[in-house]
C-alpha cells in the first residue's frame, strides 16, 4: 500500500508548519513546547486572572486593575511546554475501500497531523491498528523525526479486522499520561467501540475523532443484482439494489453518522466527518481547522 511521499513537498510542509494542534484539555507535558502546560508559573505566557485569596504571592497581584477597580486580582501564568500527542490510524481491511482508499487518506492525514505535532515541539506517538493489533511508534520529539514517522506509516498495509474497544484499551494501557489522541477510522466497528471512546475521554485524554468515509460508501454506485462481500469479515450476501433499497441504505447510514455525532457531543469528543474524495490538503486546511482540531 504505502503512502505518497511526494504529496508532502516543501510547500505543503511549510503550510503545515504554520498550524498548531489544539487541545481542549490542559495536558501535562514533560519538556518545553509551544502549548500552555498544565503546570502553573513559568515565564512565558499570561494565562488568566483570579481573585486574590489570602496567602498568595503579592507579587502576582495586578495593581493596575486594583487602581481601577479597587479589587485584588492575581495574574496566572503558564509555561509553554510540550504535550503528548497520539495519532492512531485504523488500518483494518475495511479501510482499503474506495478511490482513493480510506487507508491512503487516513495515512496522509496522520502524517500531516504528525508533522504539525512535531513542528509544535510536542511529543508524538503514532499507532496503527490492524490485524496484528495496535502497533505504536514513538515518542518522537522533533520534526526531524518526521521521516521516521513517514517510514512507519508507509510500511503499513490494511489487513485483518479490529475492534475499536480493544484498540483504545490497548492504547490506554500503554500510555499512562493523558494525551491528545487523534483517532482516524471509518468507525465501521460493530463491537463495543463507542464505550471505549467514552472511557478514554473520561480518563483524561483529549480525544478527537476523524471519521473517514469514501464516496462509494456515501452513495453506492451499484444497481440491480449484486453479491456484496464484506472485505473485513468475508461475509457475503446477495442483494437486489433498487432505488428504494439504496434510499434505505442512505437512511441507515445517516442514522449511523448522527449517532456518532451525538455520541461525540455528549462525551465532549471532537468529531469530524471527512470524505476521501476531498484532497488531503483541503481536509487539513479547511475541515480540521474549522472543526477546531487545528489553528
Amino acid at each position, binding site marked *: 500500500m504505502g503512502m505518497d511521499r511526494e504529496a508532502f513537498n516543501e510547500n505543503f510542509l511549510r503550510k503545515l508548519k504554520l498550524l498548531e494542534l489544539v487541545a481542549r484539555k490542559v495536558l501535562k507535558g514533560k519538556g518545553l513546547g509551544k502549548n500552555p502546560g498544565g503546570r502553573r508559573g513559568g515565564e512565558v505566557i499570561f494565562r488568566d486572572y483570579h481573585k486574590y485569596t489570602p496567602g498568595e504571592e503579592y507579587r502576582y497581584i495586578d495593581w493596575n486593575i486594583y487602581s481601577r477597580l479597587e479589587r485584588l486580582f492575581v495574574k496566572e501564568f503558564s509555561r509553554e511546554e510540550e504535550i503528548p500527542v497520539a495519532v492512531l490510524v485504523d488500518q483494518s481491511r*475495511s*479501510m482499503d*475501500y*474506495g478511490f482513493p482508499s*480510506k487507508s491512503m487518506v487516513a495515512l496522509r492525514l496522520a502524517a500531516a497531523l504528525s508533522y504539525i505535532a512535531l513542528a509544535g515541539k510536542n511529543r508524538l506517538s503514532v499507532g496503527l491498528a490492524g490485524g496484528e493489533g495496535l502497533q505504536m511508534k514513538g515518542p518522537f520529539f522533533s520534526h526531524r523525526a518526521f521521516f521516521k514517522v513517514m517510514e512507519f506509516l508507509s510500511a503499513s498495509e490494511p489487513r485483518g479486522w479490529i475492534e475499536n474497544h480493544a484498540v483504545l484499551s490497548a492504547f490506554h494501557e500503554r500510555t499512562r499520561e493523558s494525551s491528545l489522541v487523534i483517532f482516524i477510522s*471509518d468507525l*465501521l466497528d*460493530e463491537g463495543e467501540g463507542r464505550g471505549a471512546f467514552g472511557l478514554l475521554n473520561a480518563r483524561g485524554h483529549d480525544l478527537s475523532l476523524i471519521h473517514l468515509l*469514501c464516496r*462509494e*460508501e456515501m452513495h*453506492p454506485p*451499484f*444497481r*440491480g*443484482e*449484486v*453479491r*456484496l*462481500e*464484506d*472485505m*473485513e*469479515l468475508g*461475509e457475503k*450476501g*446477495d*442483494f*437486489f439494489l*433498487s432505488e*428504494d*433499497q439504496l434510499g*434505505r*441504505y442512505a437512511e*441507515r*447510514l445517516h442514522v*449511523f453518522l448522527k449517532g456518532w455525532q451525538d455520541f461525540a457531543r455528549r462525551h465532549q469528543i471532537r468529531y469530524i466527518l471527512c470524505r476521501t474524495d476531498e484532497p488531503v490538503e483541503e481536509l487539513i486546511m479547511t475541515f480540521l481547522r474549522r472543526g477546531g482540531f487545528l489553528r
Partner: protein
Amino acid sequence: MSLVRPEFLLALLLLPIFYAINRWRFRRKRLPVSSLLFWRNLPAESPSPRREWKRRLNLLLLLQALCFSAFVLALCGPVLILKRGGSVLLVIDRSASMNARAKEGKTRLQWGLEAASRLVAGLPPDTRIELTALPLDSKSVQGGKDQVCRALSGLEGTDAPLGLEDALRSVLALHPENRNVPCYVVTDRFTSLRERRGGRIHVASFGFPARNLGITHAGAGKEGMVVEIGNFSARGENVPLRVWVDGEESPFSKDPLSLAPGEKRKVVLPIPLGDAEEIQVALGIQDDLDADNQCRLLRIPLSTVRVYSEGIQNPFFLKALEAVGGVEVVEGASQNHSPPENFALYFFNRKIPEPLPGGEVTAFYPVEGIGTIRVKGEERIDGPIRVNSPLLEGEGFEVRIGSLLQFDPVIWDEVYLRGGGEKERVLAGRKGRTTVFAFRLEESDIHFHPIFPILFAQILERVRGKGAGEFASFRTGESVKIPWLRGKEVEVKDPPGRVQVHSLKGDPFAFFPLHRGIYRLRSEGQELSVSVNLHDEEESDIRGERQDWDLGEIAGGGQREEKSLLFLCILLGFFLLGLLWWFEKRI
C-alpha cells in the same frame, strides 16, 4: 412492401448478440464493500423490484432489437407498393406448342394458367381484368377476379398455330382506351412486342435453341446419287442416312454414319436417279417424308441455265456470274426472250419489266395486302391462299399467290417462294421441271433475307458444277439442339408415338424433327417436351433461345406505385436510438 436488397436481412442473425451482451452487462456482479453493516436485513420490497428490473431489461433488449432492425431494414431498401385497382389485360397463348411439358409433369399451358391464377389472385380486389385466350377462336372474358379465375380454370389447349405478335397487336388494337393498362402475356415464345406506347407488355415465355443440322446437297452424280452433309453440329454415331426416290424409300440407303461436329462429307449412293421427279434424303431419325409439313429437298434441274437480265449493274452479281461461268446472261430478257424452259435467273433493275418474258402476263401487281392473280386481264385466283413452300419449309415463309409476280402465261404448278423483305426481292416458282428464281435488285445494292445469300450462293455453285448432275438440291429444315443434354442417352418419342434412342457422346444432343407436334424426350429420368412446327417458327421450339418461365415479370400485377421507405426507416432508427439512450440512463 418489398425490399430492394433483401440479402441484408441476414444481418438480423446478429440479434442474439444483443441478448448475449445484455446478459453479460446485467449479470449478478460480485462487489467488495467495506462492511455489510448497513446492507444486512434490508426489508423486502413489494412488489418485487427484481421482477420490475427484469421487465426493464426485456424492454431494453426489445428497444435494442427494434433499433437494430430499423437500420437493417433501411439497408434493405424498403419500398412500399401501393396497389391500385384498375384494368389489366391478360393474354393466354394456348397454341399447340403450349401442350408441351414444362415442369413437374405439367404442360406449359397448365403451368402458365397457374401462374396467371396467382397473378390474378394478387391483384387488388377491384381490378377489372380482361382475359383473352388465343389463338383463332379467341376467348375474351371481362370481369372481376373470381370470374376470370373461373374462366382460367376452364381454358384448354388447342392444336392451332398462333402468330403471336399479330394477335397481340390485334388484342391491343381492340383496346385503344387502355393505353396505360398493363398487359400480361403467358406464352412459350419470345416476342419482340414488349414495349408499347404508354405501357409495357409483360411476357412469361420459354423455348429451346435450335441449330441447323443436315444435308446441304443431294443430287445426281456420275457414280450415282451424291449426298453432301455439312453443318452437322453434333457428334453422331449410328446416324442413319435414308433416301426416297419419288416417294419410295431406296433399298440402298446408307448404313449408319459416324459424324464429327462440323464435318462435311460427301456420300455417294448407287442409286440411279434417271428421270426421277423428286428425291428425298433424311439424315437422322426422319423416316416419313411423305407426310405433309415435313422438311423436303428442293430439286432443281440444271440442264439449261440462262440468266435473263435487264441491265446488270451490280458488280457483285457480275463478279458472281463471272465466277460461276457457263451462265448465259441475256440482256433485255423481258423484251426478247421466251420463258425459260429449264432454269433461269432473272435480274430486274429499277423498274419492273412489262410485259414479262412470255409477254402474256398483262399486269404486274405490287404487294398490297392480299392480291390477285390476273392472267390476260382475267382474275384467276383471288383471296388469301397459303402455299407451303418446300424450299423454305421450316422457315414459316408465307406465300401469297395474290401478290405473286406472274411472269408466265401458264399458271404455275407450284409456287415456291415469294418474299424476302418488304418489296419481295425474291420470287420462285415451278412449272413442270422448270424452276424459276427471280431476284430483283434495288438500285445497286442487294437486300436479301439472311437465308437468301446462302441460297443464292448455293444456286450459283450448282450452276457452276452443272456438269456434275442434273439437279440442284436444297434443304432448309432445322434441327433441334438441346445443349444441356450433352453426351447422354436420350429417348425421343415423336408425335406419332414412335420411340428412338439416341446416344450422342460429347456433344449437345440434337435431332432432326419431321413431324409437327410435341416431341417428348427422356434422359436419365429428366423429361422434356419440344414443340415442332416447321411451318410456323414461332409455334416451334426449334428457333429462338431457351427462356425458362420468368414468373417474376408477371408477379404482382396491377398498376402499382412504389414509395421508398428508406428515410422513414432511418428516422425510426434514430428515434429508437434516442429512446434507447434515454432508457439506458434510467434503467
